[in-house]
Each structure stands twice: as C-alpha cells, then as structure tokens.
C-alpha cells in the first residue's frame, strides 16, 4: 500500500509496524521530543518552529498552523486544544489510519500543541462511529498517564496536561470547528457566527486551537528534525507531505502519503494503478463530496496537488480526498448522491442551506427518476446558485459545488432525453 518504502512522515507505521505499540514507539525514539520540549523549550519556540515549517492545516482550509497558534488570545485563560477527529467527509479516511496505526505520534503531536499554546487540557473530538478508536485512545492516554508523560508536574516542571476523548453523535456538521465546539459543550451541533474565531473565543468561550488529526501528527517530526528538514518535502508554499485518500473508480484505492505538489496523474495512474478494465477517467472530485468536479483531461492530470495549483482547475485541494469518476458514471446519479448527503447533513441553522439542500434533493430525485424536464436542470442550477454566498458556514456552499460544476462542465450528462422514463434502471450498475 505504501508509496515509497521508508519515506513516510505520517504513515510511518507502514515502514515500521511496531510504532503502533507504546514500546515500539519508545524504541523508535518516541516522546523524547516531548520531554525535550517540556524541559528545555519555551512554548514560543515550539510555535516558531511550526510557523517556520510552513505547515498548513490538513482539515481542508489549509490555514498556516503556526499562524493560527500565534493568534491565540494571551489575555484570556485558560486555553484549550481541541483535535478535530470528526473525519466525516465522504471519501476521507486518513485520520482514521493515523489514529489506528500510528496513534502515539498523533498523541505526541497533540501534547506538543497543547504545550505550545499553554493549554493544560486537550480534547480529541471523534465522530461517533469511531467509538472503538476512542476506546483504544482512552487506553493509550491512560498508559501515557501511567508513564508520567501526562499529568501533573511533567518531568519535574510545573507544566501539566490532560487529554480526553469525546464522541460525537453522528452529525457531519460537527466537523465544522465551531459546531464541533458547540457539540463538545453538550449543545446542539450548529456552527457559530465567525468572527470571533476559536483562537479568541472557542471552547466555553475561551481561546482554543482546533486542529485536524493529520495536521498535529506532523508536529513531532517538525520539532524533532526542524522546520528546514520539513520544508524539503512538498512545494515552497505547500511544504510537507499529505495523505491523499484515493477512492472511486481506481485500481488501488487507499491512503497515499506523498509530497504536496505530486500531480493528479501520478497519484491516480501511477500510485493508484489507473482505472480498472481499461475504462477512461472522466472526472475527479478533489475534496470528497465538498468538491467541484474536475474535468479529468491531460491538463488536470498534470496539475500538482497543492494549495496553490488546484484552484486553477476550479477546485480546491481541501482534505485531499480524491474520488475518481470514470466514463461509465452518469453524473445525474452522482449529483443526487452528493445533494442527498448534504440535505441529510445540513444542520438547518441558516435558511439557504436548510431549504436549499432540501429543494435541490427534490429536484435531483426527479431528474434521477426520469420525471424531470430540461428546465428542472436549469432550476437545480439556479437553486444552487441562489445558495452560493449566502450560507452561514461552508457546508451550504459546499453543497452547491458538485451541482453547479457538473451541470456546467458535463452538460451532456444533464441532457434530458425525451421519453426517457427511468434513468434509475440504466444506473443499476452504479449501485453494484
């Protein structure tokens, strides 16, 4: 599965499976950085190192991690660290592998982050379906406490740290950081108005750093080996490696940790083994369900996957969950799928998303079941366009991406054949 043996930063367990055990991780030098940092480094120095590394948030937005940490309000206490382990984006399954197989590196990353922002408590918020993972993490956290790597007066200093896991209740919206914080506080998971942003007004109204699992898994090696070392990977503006979750119509789906800037062609055709049965690639979804559909032409396949290059294709790198769509896929079906998902997951707080996803789903169902006319396609696009730029959070905006881009870029798929009663029958293959 792994890419190039021995080249991983995040999926190091693929090179050394023993890392998944505490003993194995210690043997590999694990938590030495932690001790070093707590006993010898100032929090500011940790922040500076991460800032210099150019690490960008892996949750989707790609915001510079070190800069976010610098934003934490130092006149308001206490501070919290919250790990976003709500990995819910369809087609995204990277955080799960990290937490399952390389958990100690992840936990060390969380701990270093807490130290860097002067937090004494960090919460790991996992999606509800990760309950088994949470149980494992709880055991691992207990072990860290037992080993005196967590708790009071760490390594004889005054610093103390506790970690807790918290399970969500099954809402996609709780991956949005402010909805996550609401949920963590025990409230209905709905996004808050931003600004203020969590570094000034977060958990319980206190300054909070919310980071993705993958982001924090980078931190131990950045601190251990330095920002300069980290910048050897990836591009100048998108340094480091990234786990690409590859799925869809591809021969070898799975997680691939590759330097940022690797091309789509390289990932799909070389690492992913291309499209099965000699079929042609049609489209790429670059960031799970929250993506536009990229026309998979030569230009797209030659485009480097980094935060700067992907927008040229009218798409975003996002969480880098690449879903490959081949020529046999009817995008009417795909659009219905994504719209259904967002309709199901809209929190209902703002009008355009609550009503728009509901309405769009009604139309996509009509289109899918051959009950639509051409003007319904126009209506679908118009509803999506009317949602754009009006929603409270990104969910509603994302819900329109696949709709608008599919209709615009793949008009053939949305030509309603006169007399075609049921497309659903033709689509049987899709459901197999």
């Amino acid at each position: 599965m792994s890419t190039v043996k021995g080249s991983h930063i995040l999926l190091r367990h693929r090179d050394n499976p023993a890392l998944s055990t505490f003993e194995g991780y210690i043997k590999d030098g694990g938590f030495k950085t932690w001790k070093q940092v707590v006993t010898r480094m100032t929090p500011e120095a940790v922040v500076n190192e991460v800032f210099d590394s150019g690490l960008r948030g892996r949750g989707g937005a790609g915001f510079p991690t070190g800069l976010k940490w610098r934003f934490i309000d130092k006149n308001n206490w206490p501070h919290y660290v919250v790990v976003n382990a709500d990995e819910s984006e369809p087609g995204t399954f990277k955080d799960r592998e990290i937490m399952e197989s390389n958990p100690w590196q992840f936990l060390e990353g969380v701990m270093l982050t807490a130290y860097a922002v002067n937090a004494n408590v960090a919460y790991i918020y996992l999606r509800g379906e990760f309950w088994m993972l949470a149980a494992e993490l709880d055991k691992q956290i207990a072990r860290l406490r037992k080993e005196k790597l967590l708790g009071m007066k760490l390594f004889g200093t005054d610093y103390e740290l506790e970690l807790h896991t918290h399970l969500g209740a099954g809402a996609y919206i709780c991956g949005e950081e402010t909805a996550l914080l609401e949920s963590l506080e025990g409230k209905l998971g709905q996004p808050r108005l931003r600004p203020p942003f969590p570094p000034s007004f977060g958990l319980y109204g206190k300054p909070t750093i919310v980071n993705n699992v993958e982001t924090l898994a980078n931190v131990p090696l950045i601190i251990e080996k330095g920002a300069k070392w980290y910048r050897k990977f990836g591009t100048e503006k998108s340094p480091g490696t990234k786990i690409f979750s590859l799925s869809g119509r591809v021969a070898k789906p799975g997680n691939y940790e590759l330097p940022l800037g690797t091309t789509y062609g390289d990932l799909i055709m070389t690492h992913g083994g291309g499209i099965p049965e000699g079929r042609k690639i049609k489209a790429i979804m670059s960031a799970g369900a929250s993506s536009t559909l990229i026309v998979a032409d030569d230009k797209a396949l030659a485009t480097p996957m980094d935060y700067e290059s992907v927008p040229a294709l009218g798409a975003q790198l996002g969480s880098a969950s690449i879903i490959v769509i081949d020529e046999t896929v009817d995008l009417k079906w795909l659009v219905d799928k994504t719209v259904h998902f967002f309709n199901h997951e809209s929190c209902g707080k703002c009008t355009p998303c609550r009503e728009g996803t509901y309405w769009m789903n009604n139309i996509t169902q009509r289109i899918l079941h051959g009950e639509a006319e051409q003007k319904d396609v126009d209506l679908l696009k118009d509803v999506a366009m009317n949602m754009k730029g009006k929603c409270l959070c990104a969910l509603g905006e994302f819900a329109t991406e696949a709709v608008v881009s599919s209709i615009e870029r793949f008009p053939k798929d949305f030509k309603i054949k006169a007399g075609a009663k049921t497309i659903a029958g033709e689509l049987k293959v899709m459901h197999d």
Partner: protein
Amino acid sequence: MTDAVKPNVETTLVNLTIDNVPVSVPKGTLVVDAAKRIGIDIPVFCYHPKLEPVGMCRMCLVDIGLPAVNRETGKVETDKQGRPVINFGRALQTGCTVEVAEGMVVVGYTEKVQKARQDVLEFLLTSHPLDCPICDKGGECPLQNLTMAHGRSDSRFIFDEKIKLAKHVPLGEMIFLDRERCIQCARCTRFQDEIADDPVIGFEARGRSLQIVTYSEPGFDSIWSGNTTDICPVGALTTTDFRFGARPWELQASASLCTHCPVGCNTTLNTRREAKAGGEMVVKRVMPRQNEEVNEIWLCDKGRFAHHYAAKDDGRLTGPLVRRDGKLVAATWEKALALVAEKFEGAGKGLVTLAGGKLTNEDLYNLAGLAKARGGKALLDSRMAGGDLTAQVGLSTGSNLADLGKGDAALVVACDLEEEAPLWWLRVKQAAERGATVIVANPRRTKLERHAAFTLRYEYGHEAALVTALVGSFSPKRADLPAAVQALIRDKDVKDAGQAIAGAKDLIVFYGSEGTGLAESAALARACANLLIGTGHIGRPNNGLVAVWDKANAQGGWDMGLRPSADLAADLGAAKAAYIVAADPAGDSPALAEAVKAAGFVVVQDIRLSATAELADVVLPAAAFTERDGTFTSGERRVQRLHPAVPAYAGLRGDFAVTAQIAARLGVAQEKRLATGVFNQIAASVPAYAGLTSAALSEVREQWPVIGRGDVYYGGTTYDNKQGLGVQLPVSGDSPALTFEQPAEPAKFKGLKAVPVTRLYDRGTTVTPSAVLHPRLPGAFIALSVEDADKMKIEPGQKVQATLNGVTVEVEAHIDNSLAQGVVLAPRSFGLAIEGPCEITVKK
C-alpha cells in the same frame, strides 16, 4: 441587546453611509440598527434588537464596503475626485452581525442585494404552508409583509412536494406551535435563554427536520411564554387565549395598564365587536405597549392572560343590589344610593372605607375625601407598610432601571421578585448583566439569586435586622443592638454586601412582603430607608426605595392618604358603616369575614359578586378597568394613565363617580363626571402630584429600539406607545430623619411557624376568572422544609390538613430544600388564613 443601546457604554460616534445617506451612530452599533435609526429598512427575521444577533435567517444580506487603506502609509486611498476608494467584499454580509466602522458604505438597493432578499424569501417559502388566510398572524406578519415587499410573484417549488408537519403542537397549555409555519429563526428560544432565563424550549434534530421542542414538565414552563408569540416573525407560535379568535385588522387598540402588580406595565387592549357577545365590544387580547422605562416590550403571562376578570360575563355585576328579607335583590341606582347615603349619614364618624389597591388614583382620592369629610377612616386593603417612606426616599423623576450598570447596586430583600413583580425581576437581572451588583436577601432560594453577587439568608422575621446589619456602620459589640443584628453584622457576606452597597454609585432597594405582615413590613421599610439615607442614596435619580407592593396601585393609595389598618378585623367589626371598594376581606380571611358580619351597615362596590359582597347590605357595581379612564402610580412612582377600551354596562361608572354620587347626597362635593377632573384636583392638592396634567401623562418620546410600527418584522407585534409614557413623581425633597427603630425579635411559636409568601399565579379574584391560566394555577398548598417533611413522613404532593388562625384547609404539601427547619410557606390568596407570620399545625 447590542452594546450600542446599553447605557453606560462609550459613545464614540462612527460615521458611515447607508444607501448614500450619511449617519453617525455609537461605536458597536450593528448595521441593521444604524439603518433603522435613519428610517432605512434592512429586512430581518432572526434578528431582534433585544436579542444577541445570530445571523441565521440570512434575510439582512447587504453589500458592505470599507475604505481601502494603503498598507504603507496607513491612509485611506482616494480616487481622482478625491473620494475614498471603497472595497466591497466578494460576498454579501449579514447586516445584523456586522458592526459599523468609520467610512463604511452599506448598500441595500443594488440588484445583487434585492435578489438576495428575493432568494432567501423563496427558500423560506418552499417549506412554508402559505396558510395566511387562516393564520392568526396574517395581517401583522413579518413574513407576509416582507414577501409582499421583496418576494417573487411566482412559485418554483412544486406544491405537492411541500413538507407536511404537525400544525397544532401544544408547547404548553398557553402556547401552540405550528411546525409548518416555523422558519427556525430561534427568536423564541433565544428569548427564553437570554431574556427570560428559562431555557425550557430549544431546537431538536437538524436540517429540514429542525424543530422547536420543550424540555420542561409541564411544557413551556415559563411565566414569560406569551412574549415569544409577539416576537415570532410568523404564525408559528400563538396563544391559546387569542388563537383563531380574531383577525388583526378587525382589532381596535386602546392604551391601558396592567393592574396586577406594582410595575405598571403599559399594555394595549385589542378589542372587537362580536356577534357571539351580542354585538358587544370584547377584549380579545392584551398586548405589551412599549415603554422602555417600565416594561420595555414585554409582559408576563399573568398580565397577558389574566384579564378575563374584567370581561362582561355572567359573573359581572350590572346594577345595584339591596338586601331585602335577607336576600340581595336588584334595586335602582336612586334607591340604592339613597339608602347608602342615609346609612352613612347615620354612621357619622363610624364610617370605615376600605379601598382595594387596584383602584385608580381618582377612585382612591374620592374615597379618602369622603371618609375624611365624614370624619371616618380611610383604609387601604394592604398588608404592607412604607408608602410614606417611598414618597420621601423613593425613586424620583428621571429614574430608569435600565440605567443601573457597572458600579451600581440593587438590593432585593424579603421578596421573590419574579413572582411578585416579574418585570422588575427582568430589569434587575439585566442590571446584573450590565455589571450592577445585585444583592438578594431572602430566607429561601429565589430565581433572582442566579444573577446575584451576594445571596444573604436570614431567619424569617429578621428582615429588618438584616438590612440594619447591612448599614455597615455598626459595631457588633453594640449592646443595644438586638442579638439578631449583632450576629448578622459578624457575617462575612453581610459585611461584604454592606460594603458593596456603601460604595455603589447608585442604589435601589426593593423590599417585598415575603414572610411579613404589616408590623414586620413597617420595620423593614424603615430599615431600608435608613440604609438609603445612611449611605447617601437618596434624592437623586436611580436611587431610592421601591416597595414591591401587594397591589398595583398601593402607592397611589398611600399618596391619596389611605393607610393599611393595623387591625383590620377590629376596624371593620367596629364600623357603624363599612364602605368596601374593590376589596374582598371576607374572601381573604375567615376572621375578616366575621368582622364584616359584625359591621353595622356594609356597602360593597366591585365588578363581581365577591365573598364580601355576599355579606353586604348594598352592592354597587362599577366599571372594570377596561371600561374606564384613570391613573395608577407604579412602585417606581410613575403616574400612568389607562383609557377605556370597551363601553361599560349601561349606567355603570368608574368607582370615583359612584363615590362622588354618594358624597353628593351627604353634602360633600366631589367630581363625578370625568376622571381627569378628579386628576386635576389631585394635581392641585396632593403635593407630590403638583402641576401634573393629563397632557403630561400623554407625552411620548422617541424610544429605542423602534418597535410596533408598520415594520412588525423588526421588533414584533408589541405596540408603539403613542398614548403616553407617564410621569415619574419627584420625591418630597424633605430629607427624612434617620429614625432608628429597634428591629423586634420575631414572634416565636411552639410549633411550626407559617410565613406568608406571594405567588404570581394565585387563586385570587382577579386571576381565577381567566380559564386560560387554570392549567397553571396550583391548588392550595404549603411548602415544608426537608427536615420537617421527613419528621412528619410527608411526601411531596401529599394532601395534608393545615390549620392557621383556627381555620383548617386541605392543602398539598410541597417541599422546598432551601427552607429552614420549623418554617412553613403559606401562599397568600389560596384560601389560607394568613396575614403575617403565625403558628400552623400540619396533620396528615
């Protein structure tokens, strides 16, 4: 509430333009509010000027631009004409969440913004049932109005695909939810969280399934629930009182006042002529009328729903009754009045008038005048003292509870403020939220404690001692101080609270009647006055004493010269003739019923046949508050006027006129035609009211937020105040002497001690006629301490026999875990014979 409208905040002005109109508003003002101030309407649904903004409904999207600032020079860039370059954001922004900034340009008239409004409305209407023809809100509905203004003319959503939801969901007994009409704006839930502090309703589920549910048992358990129907921007929330009762455009509006408690909430009575009432005018609903110095835009549910006692139903008296052969039979006014005059003439100085505290100043003035002219007694039906002190050191002209904030303090003693005067609770809570130090002193837990900086407990009977201890200048070693005061002075919380009081910029002291009879109340009022005088908190606005009176116009009663009787039973029993107006002593207490029977000749004047009226020799009917003119003086000493909303029964007049007709027959000249005529006499003869005119009471000023006009979307259906904000009286100006009274030791009883407490929902004559409230009216009950209940093996809810002052009543036992052992709470107006602390025996 945004900072901009809170007092005590910096008022740096920010300049911006909205739709090309320049405007300067205080820093922190939100764009929608800034627009409102210059009459530009940015449509909203979820935003409400009294609530924190949430930006949910997206209706207020506008184009917002800021001056481009050169990064190097830090200066605003200009174009060739020297005008600042404005950078507009890529997306529209919600005007309800963005604060104004210097040089900001807000545009609402562009096609982009207009289309956004149309789009958001189209989204809202996809799930809305469009059942306006049968909707109570139709005609005063923000969604309807804004759809007319900004909506599409066609519908692109397939009607058959509309979501179908429950349309008659009782959230509680008083409020119904129509789930189809709800647009998920969260105004109701935020009102309950932020304003009422009763978070009993909330959202459940998500997406299109997002719905309002209640978490409390019973449902929507809040005395503030009716307000949510005013601010609901659609017909989702309706009251059982008004639901399907009338269409808004059929209603006429008359300015009135709530007559239930001393706050004096401004109301509007909505009336309509009804076939089922035989073509009579009927009060269909009571709505709040905005007065930012009194009730803002809110009403408690008692004020909103307990108006039916004034309705013209079978229980109302329509003509005089005279006792003949032991029975009350109808008589002409002429005969009844002649009989009354004859008997009063014969009684000479033995005439006792007893006046209820819900009478108007005009009624009370004539009553007191008659009693004085005849050398009789003018008694006020109240168990509270201190009206003379509030006239001297009460709140004075220019006071507004909304001005209390950081650096100020409010002491609330012997009072469950939310139960006794709900709006004051709300306003004191808000003062706490603005930073005022709130001190709650009560022997048991009350809701206001959630917002108190200090919570002081004392033993029932020690209320005056507690306040004396707070004065702070006493040494605990002073031998002349009662032991109770000495002990309290040593208490650290009392000491700290005393310091906070002494150091407060402005201080308002509220005293209620929790656990007190008249004697205890007098000591408490005196101690409170001493505290204010001693700490220099008198004679200025926002400083002084407020009595949380047991009746709405008790302050007016005191001002008109009536006084509570120290021994009402004795006074009534000894009366040669008793003239009892709007009071029901026999209904209040069996002992007083005996006294009424013992009185020589009894005349009862009321709107319904009370227990006392049943014992009377002559019963005279009067017009209800909905049918007449008059003024009330609130506990904050604000004189306000009510107007007739519906015509009285033929021949029925306000109480002042009935009294004047009796007086005329006794040779005492009184104004009997117009209440305003009596008011002019009051202004001429009662010093504190000197110079007051009806015109002054009717004056209005610009109020913020702008509410209740054509734009019901902004603030709700609360009425704009066009009929007068009232006039707050000046204090007498005499600096009263610090007369120190030794707080008496509370009476000790061998057994359990019962103390009277006031409940908002009681079983008094002004509450029980309103059937809408019945599901929420508790039966007679007492509350026991955990220890006493354990000792007697009494379970919560168990029926027990309670004997007070020789009268035994079956009551339900409640248990209050904040109550001290040996004390039993006995609520007033539940048929229990309690006027002050007394002994009680409880048997299973």
